[in-house]
């Protein structure tokens, strides 16, 4: 048995009958049991969240806008200037 298949922890939680049957139906339609469905779905989402914590992937159009924003001349706004003139904190 590999470490990946080792099941050495347990998750238990309560939910409503409605949500349980919704989840069960989704699991049934994929032909997996409820636990496998919940674990695989939540694991996938957890990986997305972990990635989003370090990287933002832009679409082609968003990337183009971002690039031109970086290349254009920039001037600080009044609000930025006055914020930068605010008092600092003690060390």
């Amino acid at each position, binding site marked *: 048995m590999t470490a990946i298949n080792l099941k050495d922890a347990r998750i238990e939680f309560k939910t409503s009958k409605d949500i349980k049957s919704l989840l069960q139906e989704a699991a049934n339609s994929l032909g997996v049991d409820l636990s496998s469905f919940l674990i695989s779905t939540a694991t996938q989402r957890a990986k997305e969240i972990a990635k989003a914590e*370090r990287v933002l992937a832009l679409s082609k159009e968003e990337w183009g806008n971002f690039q031109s924003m970086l290349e254009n001349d920039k001037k600080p706004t009044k609000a930025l200037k006055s914020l930068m003139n*605010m008092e600092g904190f003690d*060390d």
Partner: protein
Amino acid sequence: MTNLRLVKYDVSTAYNGIKSFDCGNAMINSFVHKSLKKRVQKHLSQAYVLLDSENNERFVGFYTLDTFSITRASFETDNRPAGLPPMIPVVKLSMLGVDRQFQGKGIGKRLIRDVFLKSVKISELAGCAGVYLLAEKDAVTFYSSLGFVKIADAEPLPMFLAIELLL
């Protein structure tokens, strides 16, 4: 005016009042109570904490910075037959909070000023194209006024300020 000190978060210090810290945002409160120490301990974030020198160094505010990258979705391979999608290194302002008792005094703005000063230092020490953050709906106008621009459609809104504006 109270004397507030801003210091780098120290994982071995038990900050006075940190357990009862309340900035009015449940997610940020829970981060301070449960995750802050672990994230700094693991070097996932750096945190700076605001202490009230006139009240037993009470923890009254904080912010955290993370390293972050903005990239192009990798499945679009046109015009880039070789290599990885380009990655732009930025600093992410991940969390910021000021205790309710200290709100409405411009302290949050002064914390953001400090974020900007630190970002400039980071850009001098390593590559950093600007400051990135996810703005909640009610904060978008404020960040826009500072020059942050929306870089993608999502909620909360991904916004970016180029480092040149801070130099």
